[in-house]
């Protein structure tokens, strides 16, 4: 089991009252499986992704990521866990603008002190079809190309699980489809699990499992 979630609840304070963002969320995911989290805006999708990836802490409930009790870890330990086991693809790509595509892809691998980070980065850039653009800066790349660099970065760091928050949300339909195909293609070559938050039903349909959230609860 790569991901096990039990009775997850997230509340936030709003003045004197408490707002429940997620309630009683329970599910699990096996190694190599993919999961789509869907639902309308404000349903708690991104909050759930943040909790699963160790970016935020739940009010109650349990999350086991690769058998590590994420809910018991402090921020420093969660950062270490993210470094070792988690890859990210963000809606807004989040590439460092002053680094080249190659440097951006190398960054998480270098942080993990992996062997030959440059070779790994070059391999994944080639895999996403950007070998010729490795020395280009993000502002010299189109949105679709930037997201492909972000995908290469997520895979280059040998993560166990990859989280993608609306990976096609900022792209036109053609580029969106190309990026989503690429995400599954490259993921198929690894035994990574993949968790995608998306509004895109086509993208969600490509996943092994789906969770539909409404007002913070799983409805299907």
């Amino acid at each position, binding site marked *: 089991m790569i991901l096990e979630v039990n009775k997850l609840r997230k509340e936030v304070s709003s003045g004197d009252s408490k707002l429940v963002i997620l309630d009683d969320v329970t599910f699990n995911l096996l190694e190599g499986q993919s999961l789509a989290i869907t639902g309308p805006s404000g349903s708690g999708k991104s909050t759930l992704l943040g909790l699963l990836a160790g970016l*935020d802490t739940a009010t109650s409930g349990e999350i086991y990521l690769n058998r590590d009790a994420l809910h018991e870890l402090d921020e420093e330990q969660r950062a270490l866990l993210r470094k070792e086991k988690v890859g990210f693809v963000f809606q807004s790509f989040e590439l460092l603008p002053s*680094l080249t595509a190659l440097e951006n892809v190398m960054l998480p691998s270098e942080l993990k002190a992996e062997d030959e980070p440059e070779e790994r980065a070059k391999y994944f850039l080639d895999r996403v079809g950007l070998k010729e653009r490795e020395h280009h800066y993000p502002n010299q790349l189109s949105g679709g190309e930037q997201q492909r660099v972000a995908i290469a970065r997520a895979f280059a760091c040998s993560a166990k699980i990859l989280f993608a928050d609306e990976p096609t949300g900022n792209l036109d339909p053609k580029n969106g489809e190309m990026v989503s195909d690429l995400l599954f293609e490259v993921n198929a070559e690894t035994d990574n699990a993949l968790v995608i938050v998306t509004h895109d039903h086509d993208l969600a349909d490509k996943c092994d499992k789906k969770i539909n959230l409404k007002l913070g609860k799983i409805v299907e």
Partner: protein
Amino acid sequence: MKYWMIVKSGINRKKIRTFMTVFSIATAFLLFSLGRSVAVAFNSEVDFAGNDRLIVVSRLAFTESLPMAHKNRIEAVEGVSTVVWRQWFGGTYKERQNFFPKWPVPDNYFDVYPEWELSEGAQEAFSRNITGMIVGKDLADQFGWEIGDRIPIIADIWPKKGGGVWEFDLVGTYTNSISEEQGEAFINWKYFDEARLYETGRPGNYIVKIENPDQAESIAKEIDELFKNSLDETKTSTEEAFSRMFAEQIGNIGLIINSVLAASFFTILLLTGNTMSQAVRERTPELGALKAVGFTDRHIMLFVLAESFFLCIAGALIGVLIAYLLFPLFSGLAIGFSGEIEFSISILISAILVAFITAVISGVLPAYSAMRLNVVDALRKN
């Protein structure tokens, strides 16, 4: 390498802003280096080493006059070869802005300044002509004076008996063979002392030529001992120290310079702090992404501090380098006020220390706020 990539990314993000910030810091450190060199000169102890001329002034204040009788007693001190004297004349040539130092001096005054080369016949004419005046070559050129010209000086400190304007005859010029200083005027003591309204027979200070510069400190002490507990106690020092005393009539120069430098660094502190805060605000999603991929809070704090260090240290080094290159020109301008000033290694060390402190103070708050960023909130800032 991995950490430098992130720091480099932050620095290169807004190249113009980085350049402007480094430029501002460099300007502050240029002022710091030049100002410190003068402040150090003003605040340093009197160094007697290598001085073969001493200046004797009143212990009360260097503007107080001394009795002429001191001359013979000073001359009797072992190791003293010549004693001459002078008095600050003040006065105005036509307009107040035409300022230059004017000193009534005895005939043999120039003997103690072998580096001054008098024009042909100047010494003899000065001895012979009671209203004679010798001026620096630059000064003569500045006002277009020629030998034989009559120079009127309006009195302020020293009115003439019977009133009226002082008039002197230009009998020669001097050039200085070891420095560019040739902007003073010397008038005949006999004329001045006889014609002035008061304080006849009292010079302002004595210049003492000694035989062995190694004995400067001990001779200075001996001269001051001679007049201890008298009505006219003395303070004997070097020409450099006298120049400093003269300049400090307007206040404590060292303190003034240090205060200006402190104010400029306070401004730089705010500027750098603001730049760093702005950089952190603009990069909030980026910093969130870095945290998401596994960089810890401590990493993020260090990246921001490293940027602050880069800006401050780069600015400091550039400023100090420019100051070093400009120093020969600057020391030439400042030498008349502070005496010999030096560009010492201590200036570089203190500049780096100040840069270090500036970087820490200006970077610590932005670094702390970057460290405390919530990843989810940071990523939502897009």
